[in-house]
């Protein structure tokens, strides 16, 4: 008997939840209403909106579903691999379109994040996915956000069409090394994944060049491309993961690399650890990723004093770096340059911007910093401010212990 829409929605959203990305930001602004509106339904406003949060703390911004969870690939880490006995289902093109529009009208979502298991062939699967995006955009004038996961080995012509409808394209690198991919996702070819990313970067750049005739820009995946790496399924250390991220950012202009702590899945492969997902490790990787992209840190700086190639789980990587480089502190908030202010544990990019603005008018003390939403308790060991000099706190041998979290009993799974 055919499963009801509700039953299939249950299966195909359960199957989609291991993809961490849910971003709906950073695309071109467009909308249906107003003087320049084109009618229809939907808008994108630059920054994304999280319409709900699940009890796992993750934002729900998009309707994140698979078109189908049947798959001819057998990737060990994946709930949908062909050797798994997980329940299978498939949506028709029309059903995905209907769900997206009806969810959108009720303001549950910003748009659609569509992925899929591979059925028949990569091209067949990608074609069906492109059809969904095309229907939404052309038949229904849908102006909300669309994120399409591209299928490995799909032909470049399909990717090119996908980029005309989608805000974002992504393809998951899955594991940080080629040998890891060969071991856990034997049917995926890392070189093809990189080639696909390279191709998308070229298409995005090409679309960004105004044409001579119209001076206008073509639209191709205006929210760029992203990827995801699974953390903790194979033995790759943080250094390997982060250097792969740096390569991907540099090579393909990715907006984001997502890290997904490997999480136990129903009917898991015997090849994989069934332990609690390494959430703290995932968190530290995101912090390091941020430091690389917004704070001027090199990946290798964050790992240089870590003999096992792993970030310190007990300290955030910026604090760990500061404790390993005490000679660079204290930093005078009234005179230090932006680069060094960004390296002070407790100063975010916004705080640094505020400091640079406020100190043009007067010398800043700890009170001023508190009003800039800085945690004075956290930063004061590392800074000099008007009326404040840390009393050689920075030299205390037990400084690290002041910041370490209180030990707690680890709970068993």
């Amino acid at each position, binding site marked *: 008997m055919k499963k009801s829409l509700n039953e299939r*929605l*249950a*299966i195909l*959203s*359960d199957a989609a*939840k*291991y993809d961490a990305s849910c971003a709906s930001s950073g695309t071109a602004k467009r*909308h*249906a*209403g*107003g003087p320049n509106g084109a009618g*229809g*339904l939907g*808008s994108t*406003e630059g920054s994304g909106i*999280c319409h*709900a949060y*699940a*009890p*796992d*703390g*993750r934002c729900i911004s998009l309707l994140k*579903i698979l078109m189908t969870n*049947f798959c*001819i690939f057998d990737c060990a880490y994946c709930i949908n691999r*062909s050797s*798994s*006995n997980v329940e299978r289902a498939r949506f028709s093109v029309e059903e995905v379109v209907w769900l997206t529009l*009806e969810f959108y*009208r*009720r*303001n*549950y979502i910003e748009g659609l994040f569509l992925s899929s298991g*591979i059925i028949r*062939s990569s091209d067949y699967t990608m074609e069906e996915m492109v059809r969904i995006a095309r229907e939404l955009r052309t038949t229904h004038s849908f102006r909300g956000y669309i994120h399409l996961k591209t299928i490995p080995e799909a032909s470049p012509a399909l990717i090119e069409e996908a980029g005309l409808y989608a805000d974002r394209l992504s393809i998951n690198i899955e594991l940080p090394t080629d040998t890891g991919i060969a071991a856990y996702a034997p*049917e995926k070819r890392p*070189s093809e994944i*990189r*080639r696909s990313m*390279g191709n998308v*970067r*070229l298409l995005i750049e090409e679309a960004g060049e105004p044409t001579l005739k119209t001076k206008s820009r073509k639209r191709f995946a205006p929210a760029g491309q992203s990827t995801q790496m699974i953390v903790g399924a194979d033995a790759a250390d943080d250094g390997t993961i982060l250097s792969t991220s740096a390569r991907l*950012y*540099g090579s393909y*202009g990715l907006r984001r690399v997502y890290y997904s*702590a490997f*999480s*136990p899945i129903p009917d*898991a492969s015997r090849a994989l650890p069934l332990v609690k*997902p390494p*959430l703290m490790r995932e968190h530290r990787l995101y912090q390091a990723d941020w430091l690389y992209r917004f704070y001027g840190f090199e990946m290798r700086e964050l790992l240089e004093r870590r003999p096992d190639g792993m970030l310190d789980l007990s300290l955030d990587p910026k604090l760990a770096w500061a404790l390993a480089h005490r000679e660079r502190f204290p930093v005078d908030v009234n005179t230090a340059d932006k680069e060094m202010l960004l390296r002070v544990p407790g100063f975010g990019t916004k705080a640094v911007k505020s400091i640079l*603005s*406020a100190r043009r*008018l007067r010398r800043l003390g700890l*009170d*001023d*910093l508190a*009003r*800039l939403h800085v945690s004075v308790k956290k930063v004061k060991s590392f800074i000099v401010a008007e009326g404040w000099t840390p009393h050689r706190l920075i030299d205390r041998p037990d400084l690290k212990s002041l910041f370490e979290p209180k030990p707690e009993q680890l709970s068993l*799974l």
Partner: protein
Amino acid sequence: MAMTRIRITLEGVGALDEWRQAARGLIARAIPPEAVDWTSRRDATDLFADSKGLSGSAPLSTVQAATDAPRPQEAMPSFAVPRDFITLAEAVLCHSDPSRFDLLYRLLWRLRGQRDLLADVSDPEVARALALAKSVRRDAHKMTAFVRFKELAPDETGSDGNRRRFFAWFEPDHYIVARTAPFFERRFNDMDWIIATPKGTAAWNGERLSVTHDSHETVPRPNLTDDADGLWRTYFRNIFNPARLKVKAMQAEMPKKYWKNLPEAALIPELIAGAEARVREMAARAPTHPPAFHAGAGRKARENVVEGEAPPEGTIEALRSAAASCTRCPLHCNATQTVFGEGPDDAKVMVVGEQPGDQEDLAGRPFIGPAGRMFDKIAHEAGLARDVLYVTNAVKHFKYEPRGKRRLHKTPNAGEIRACRWWLTGEIAIVKPKLIVAMGATALTSVMNHTEKLADHRGRFTELGEGRTLYTTVHPSYLLRLPDEARRQEEIARFRADLAAVKEAQARL
């Protein structure tokens, strides 16, 4: 002298104009902030607002009517207010904090003497205003996130019976309905909707966006059910990963105060309560045997990789295809793809560069980036036609160092050159060029199979045996790197002369 106080009563539902008018009047009369009591009809805390307050709609006359107001010390020149302040005031006025009018007036008062006051973000009053504005922006953002529309039955009497109709009930902290309504108009343009709140109501009918600040008692609040809510709850239940329970993170972004109007929130307690058992159950379940279709899936997966006919042995196509999966050195792991040579397979002249760059790596073709374009241009000037040349590189994968959003070229080392020489030797054996042009030290080293100094060979022809000649010049990327313009022009001219020599030699072949 005891100061007489002035009371200004505003509607206080987030509009800028009423406050601006009142503040202008006060400023014009140089009335200091300490002398003004601001109240709002809407702030429940002020019981006297309606009976004793002066109308906000005529603030100028209000102030003038207050004959016992303090006399201005001096006439106040009018002054333009920075745009930043207006933006800030628009947000702060939406806040429900009763001190908002006074705070803004204090800032306005100080702005007269200190135009850059708002840049002093650590000033207590500036910081306070920024905090209020932030909380208004957050409230407005949460409204765009957490409004939930429910569909109403079609309106049979309406002029356009085809338009679908939706209703939402929302409870904001601040007076943000007017501020947020245009967002809903832009987004939900092809349907009619009403968003009712205790602080005002917004409605859109396809032509007009109307916002009223009537008290919510006057708004009908139908008790609606919508079947889509059931599907949404199914989605919410299944997108949740029980192995990653993080209740605090959820509540930080979706505080409980919003839950009562969210159809999905009713599920939260049971999802939290059942999470641990679900994870334990996943771990305990015995591994299963693959389903029947697994075997067929493997076959399909293999067929999925479309391999064309293998090109005949000994051709350049066969060599290119073999090189595509080269793992002779570790560079392949970091590069996008092998960038093989291009050009006629019987070319008399083969040009060898160093390695592909960023653009070549992405596109999979040699000599298309900035250095390749430089080569093309100078070759053209020297009369050398590109389409009769076979162009290739000594090393066929891009070696680089990531730096933020870019990749910095790194020179290949001797081991990498040696490993990749296998392919260059193969290309030379098949194409059988009479003349090889090595551009740069890496190409020279590879062709000679020996580390050579570029300066010793530059501009010279060297016999390689087997009727083959080597000519050496610089790599065009060297010309791109020269910072001094005069020097650069000099070197470009020299490169052009080198290529002219190649052209001459080509004519004799």
